């Protein structure tokens, strides 16, 4: 059976990746899963300089999911290149670096530093709802998304994936904007902006007041948006949002995703990525699917 998929000329042994921010750079999960088995590790977002992130509490549980407002805490690109890239190089998996910034120049600085590094693709985070400057500001207006995509495309040596926000009126329009500006692929969905109030203490559950919702509760929204994006553009899509098992992954692929990312499920169960891969293979065996590519957009 063939489980490999191709995105922008990069071949992945299987379509299972990790949702940025849920897997670090893989170090913490190496104790639980064999990183060699993953299609790709998508790293936690990295900026040109270290970011301290938001005050705590940064995490709150909600029904069937969770809210986070980490605020993209990261050690900066220099530490990342010294520590995380060599770590990932030891494994037989593709490396996708998630890039964040406050200004286009910030993103470009990171992208340029990664130009000659053993990185397979770049995922551009224009959709984090938890930081005040940058990130989502570029992902909620068509013109801003086009501008940043085009500018990064000019400097990037690796193919770029624009990670889109679900907190928009028309996901198809945003997907088209990314494609028109030269994106090689898109990934969606990032988290949905949510809020939780602790009624006993009359306080917001998160110090940031709002946070990004993830987990199985958001899956139907994510599947719908992947489907809409798939019908709006011709570039490949990496689908994510609440994937916990192989069946969830297949659902995203049938909606039009070429690959999928396991995100919050890593938090609930550190073995999730391997379980999703095994579940996909089980499905393929059960239905006699020879090539996983025949599942992409199978329901249209």
């Amino acid at each position, binding site marked *: 059976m063939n489980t490999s998929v191709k995105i922008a000329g990069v071949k992945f042994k299987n379509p299972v990746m990790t949702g940025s921010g849920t897997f670090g750079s893989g170090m913490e999960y190496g104790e639980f899963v064999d990183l060699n088995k993953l299609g790709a590790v998508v790293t936690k977002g990295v900026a040109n300089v270290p970011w301290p992130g938001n005050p705590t509490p*940064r995490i709150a*549980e909600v029904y*069937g999911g969770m809210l986070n407002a980490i605020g993209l805490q990261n050690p900066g690109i220099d530490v990342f290149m010294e520590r995380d890239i060599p770590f990932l190089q030891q494994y037989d998996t593709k490396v996708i670096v998630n890039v964040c910034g406050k200004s286009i120049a910030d993103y470009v600085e990171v992208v340029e530093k990664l130009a000659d590094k053993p990185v397979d693709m770049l995922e551009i985070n224009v959709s984090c709802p938890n930081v005040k400057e940058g990130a989502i500001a570029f992902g909620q207006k068509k013109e801003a998304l086009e501008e940043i995509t085009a500018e990064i495309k000019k400097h990037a040596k690796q193919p770029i994936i624009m990670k889109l926000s679900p907190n928009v009126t028309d996901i198809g329009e945003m997907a088209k904007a990314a494609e028109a500006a030269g994106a090689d692929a898109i990934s969606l969905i990032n988290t949905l902006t949510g809020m939780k109030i602790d009624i006993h203490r009359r306080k917001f559950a998160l110090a940031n007041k709002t946070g990004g919702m993830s987990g199985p509760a958001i899956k139907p929204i994510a599947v719908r948006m992947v489907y809409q994006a798939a019908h709006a553009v011709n570039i490949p899509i990496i689908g994510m949002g609440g994937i916990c098992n192989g069946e969830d992954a297949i659902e995203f692929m049938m909606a039009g995703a070429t690959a999928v990312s396991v995100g*919050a499920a890593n938090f*609930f169960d550190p073995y999730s990525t391997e379980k999703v891969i095994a579940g996909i293979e089980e499905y393929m065996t059960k239905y006699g699917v020879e090539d996983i590519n025949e599942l992409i957009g199978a329901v249209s």
Partner: protein
Amino acid sequence: MTKKKVTAKVLSQKKIGPDIYDLWMSTELAETARPGQFVCVYPKDKSALLGRPISICEVIPTESMMRLVYRKVGKGTSEFATLNTGDTVELLGNLGNGFPADLAKGKKVFLIGGGVGIPPMVQLAKTIQGEKQIIVGYRNSETFLDKDLDRRGELYIATEDGSLGTKGNVMDAIRENKLTADMIFACGPMPMLRAIKKYAEEAGIPAYISLEEHMACGIGACLGCVVKTTKKDPHSHVNNTRICTEGPVFEAQEVEI
């Protein structure tokens, strides 16, 4: 010392205080647990997905027995409170660094616990040999684990309502009994830990305090459970370190609480 997610078997559970439950389980994690480490306990109810971080109260490594003493506060712990002998429960452990019990060798120590911060003091008191003064604070005379601690050192009790021991908090008990120490180990609510940090600074002695924070993964990936630190830590390169991984125990002067 690898971390694992395992299925533990419930040996017994009883209520030992107001909403306080005493759970003994059979699990291989007991064989390697250090005092002050914690486990994440997973609800079976799949609408509540995150593991609940609970400190390890006591272990009997040779029998693979682990004891958790926790307060029923929400959806997850309410479910745990219904666990009966023979039931299974999913655990992720052992997590965190634990108390540096070795440093207590030859020292006169305070073991201080407040409320549900008391449980980890049981295993710590079992581990540390030598002169131990154990100071515990409760809301009222409905105490728990005091008998377990009494046989491991000199026990001093403080209650908020004064119904037992010193009226007030653990610091009041230390003052009232004119206690002194070379080193402090503590776990409890933030106001208590802040008071201990100040006390230790004034006394010029080290204090190892165990912190808690909402966390998603428990293994250092989500960066949810950070605490501000005085120095840049080698993982984050910002003044925010992970309670689940570099902690939960920190020397008090290293953290800004």
